[in-house]
């Protein structure tokens, strides 16, 4: 080897393209940018979806108890597909909810948050050439995950049908057009992703709407990936209906759930899938070749949380009764706040998100024609930098081709302490006054 060429290559990076092609088109991520902005500028953060109130005492106590119990083996690997106490209680719980027998070893798998559950679904079930139907607006990870699995996302929008009586719009007013939905199914369609209650709109799909989707799944022999992480957060006496319980659906559906959303502990990253063994066996294969085990101690504590809820199911002390009650109040508070300043909230039936129409409120942030950034992105960035209030632009939840369809909406998270919501109201009121006086 000539000394010259060796010393050149000592400084050199890899000279050939280094990253894998599967990363094409999936490198951008809204959260990386907006979480940074919120961390830098926000005084009141209603952006990223996590509670700023504490996780319930019974859950954190379970964590502490497990640690203090002297069983130091809780610091070592547990069963790869799910800590036995957790999969057992999840099976018991979902047996009740679905009205069918479940085997904790084969019908349940624990994952690192619902996020990793979704990853396992797409990797296990979607192949190159497969189409996957995604309902817009959607939790942003579905699209890159489908792409990373080599699939083609096919989008179908929820369309707003504003109420004619001048009342505030509800998330129920955003609906699929049945004919349009049916037209999206082709012989290449492998799966449809359903998210109910829906992030970001808060829509809770009705039995009729789910029935429509189910019929099409059965007709076209399509799988359903059902993201139900907000299953306990439904308001106004509405009911969360599980599509897997509809005729013909159990055998073709994977249900995704989240301890982070169920127990207000997003940082624990414990999620799960529930479904038929014929589908879950493939998710297990992906899981054992990607993370293999999930952290033990959080699973132990979540198991105890579920055991408590199993005993209190339906009772007023149940966290699953109390949490939605508290959040409904906060929702109503935020609705009032936004309505009071001229932002038009779409009242969500579920989740802890609320989308508001800012078209009457946007005078501070002028339109820039031919900008490559959708208007709501610019508005949200301006708002956090100048008013210290963080929220997420709705076009973040649309595919690349549709980002300019709805550019006058932003999403707020209301899983926040009263003080936080009050502070948000103060910012909004002050802002309104500044506008009217200028």
């Amino acid at each position, binding site marked *: 080897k000539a000394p010259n060429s060796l010393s050149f290559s000592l400084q050199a*990076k890899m000279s050939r393209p280094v990253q894998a092609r599967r990363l094409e088109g999936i490198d951008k*991520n809204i959260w990386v940018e907006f979480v940074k902005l919120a961390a830098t500028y926000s005084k009141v953060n209603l952006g990223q979806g*996590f509670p700023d109130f504490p996780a319930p005492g019974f859950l*954190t106590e379970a964590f502490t108890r497990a640690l203090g119990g002297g069983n130091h083996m809780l610091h070592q690997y547990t069963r790869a597909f799910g800590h036995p106490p957790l999969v057992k209680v999840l099976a018991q719980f979902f047996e009740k909810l679905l009205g069918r027998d479940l085997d904790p070893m084969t019908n349940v798998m624990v994952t690192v948050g619902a996020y990793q559950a979704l990853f396992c679904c797409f990797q296990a079930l979607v192949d190159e050439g497969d189409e996957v139907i995604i309902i817009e607006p959607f939790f942003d990870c579905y699209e890159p995950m489908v792409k990373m699995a080599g699939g083609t996302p096919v989008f179908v929008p929820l369309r707003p049908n504003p109420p004619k009586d001048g009342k505030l719009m509800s998330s129920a007013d955003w609906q699929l057009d049945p004919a349009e939905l049916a037209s999206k199914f082709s012989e290449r369609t492998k799966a449809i992703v359903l998210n109910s209650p829906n992030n970001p709109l808060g829509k809770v799909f009705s039995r009729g709407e789910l029935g429509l989707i189910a019929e099409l799944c059965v007709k076209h022999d399509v799988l359903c990936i059902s993201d139900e992480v907000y299953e306990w957060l439904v308001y106004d006496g509405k009911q969360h209906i599980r599509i897997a319980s509809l005729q013909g659906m159990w055998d073709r559906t994977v249900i995704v759930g989240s301890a982070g959303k169920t127990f*207000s502990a997003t940082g624990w990253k414990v999620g799960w899938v529930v479904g038929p063994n014929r589908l879950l066996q493939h998710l297990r294969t992906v899981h054992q070749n990607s993370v293999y085990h*999930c952290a033990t101690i959080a699973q132990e504590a979540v198991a105890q949380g579920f055991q408590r809820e199993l005993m209190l199911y339906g009772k007023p002390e149940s966290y699953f009764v109390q949490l939605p009650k508290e959040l409904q109040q906060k929702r109503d508070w935020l609705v009032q706040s936004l309505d009071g300043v001229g932002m038009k909230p779409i009242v969500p039936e579920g989740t802890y998100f609320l989308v508001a129409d800012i078209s009457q409120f946007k005078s501070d942030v002028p339109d820039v024609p031919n900008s490559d950034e959708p208007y709501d992105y610019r508005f949200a960035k301006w708002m956090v930098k100048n008013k210290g209030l963080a929220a997420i632009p709705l076009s973040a939840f649309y595919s690349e081709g549709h980002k300019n369809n709805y550019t006058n909406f932003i999403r707020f998270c209301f899983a926040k302490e009263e003080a936080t919501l009050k502070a948000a109201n103060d910012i909004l009121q002050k802002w309104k006054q500044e506008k009217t006086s200028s």
Partner: protein
Amino acid sequence: EFTKVAADPSIVNLGQGLPDISPPSYVKEELAKVAAVDRLNQYTRGFGHPSLVKALSQVYEQVCGRKIDPLTDILVTVGAYGSLFSTIQALIEEGDEVIIIEPFYDCYEPMVKMAGAKPVFIPLRCKNDGNSASSADWVLDPAELASKFNSKTKAIILNTPHNPIGKVFTQEELQVIADLCIKHDTLCISDEVYEWLVYKGNKHIKIATLPGMWERTVTIGSAGKTYSVTGWKLGWSIGPEYLIKHLQVVHQNTLYTCPTPLQEALAQAFWIDYKRMDDPDCYFYSLSRELESKRDRMAQLLKEAGLKPVVPDGGYFMIVDVSTLNVDLSDVDEKQPYDYKFVKWMIASKKLSAIPLSAFCGPETKKQFEKYIRFCFIKKDSTLDAAEVILKNWNKQTG
């Protein structure tokens, strides 16, 4: 399949690689403290909790002697397993070849295949004609290694200290690998989870510190192995920004963020040991001293039972040549390699478990390694006492 054995309490389990010793008390205490802090129960930064990546950058700056940016040069993952997955998914694709040294930690092969690439195997060979007393006897043939590199070779996976043999690659051995990586413009994925577990007379050397290697190496570490907390499932990848950024893209599209409370507790534990990295009481050094005496005890017991242990220079595994016992298993299903049959026989008749070495080999080399089984010795004294009873009585019951 062998982890089911762990559930049976009557069997002395020296198979699966997990400690049954307690993690250090300050590590457990740090975790107990975090449960009380509200915001630590919610999402943290996706690529790694700020206090953790800061602590990791400080520790590894010390070890590597170079500046490491906590935000761009580090990714925190779900165990080293998650780092291996993120690295391979980020940098390996269809048409690529990846060199894997046998025996190998079993996930390398399926992960490379899942990325659509072709694993190319090269075995460690015993230089003493099969008579091995130490892991240092197992070496790569430089000419054979060179022959495995071609224009399709995207990466080589290095594991030092090595599971299962316990080999600690020397400076010279790493230089041979480094020269080939540079010559063929290849990446190095360096699995260094056992980096702190090196025994007297040995030094762990990071291949990324060799000239020309930082820019083409991703180095992987593990909290589970560093602090005896395998159930925390936290690991990390460290390397140059232009490589790590692709791992971060994989991470943001697979699980997004790792658990917060565990990362915070780990960060605090790292600060405690970082401050005493010049002190022999630092856990990074005290654990390996503790394990060295377990290693020596295990080796002695095995020899007395007539087995031939390969004494490891690092890690917490020991491979053992069982052919000396001449246990006749020819009447058992022939399709299984000898070591699988031996382990099953040993579990059933001796109530002692281990892992067959052919589980760690590609198809061509299974024959070469089928006389070896792997024991794990990061076990508490009572477990080793129970193993001692079995081994001392071994010869009384054989036949």
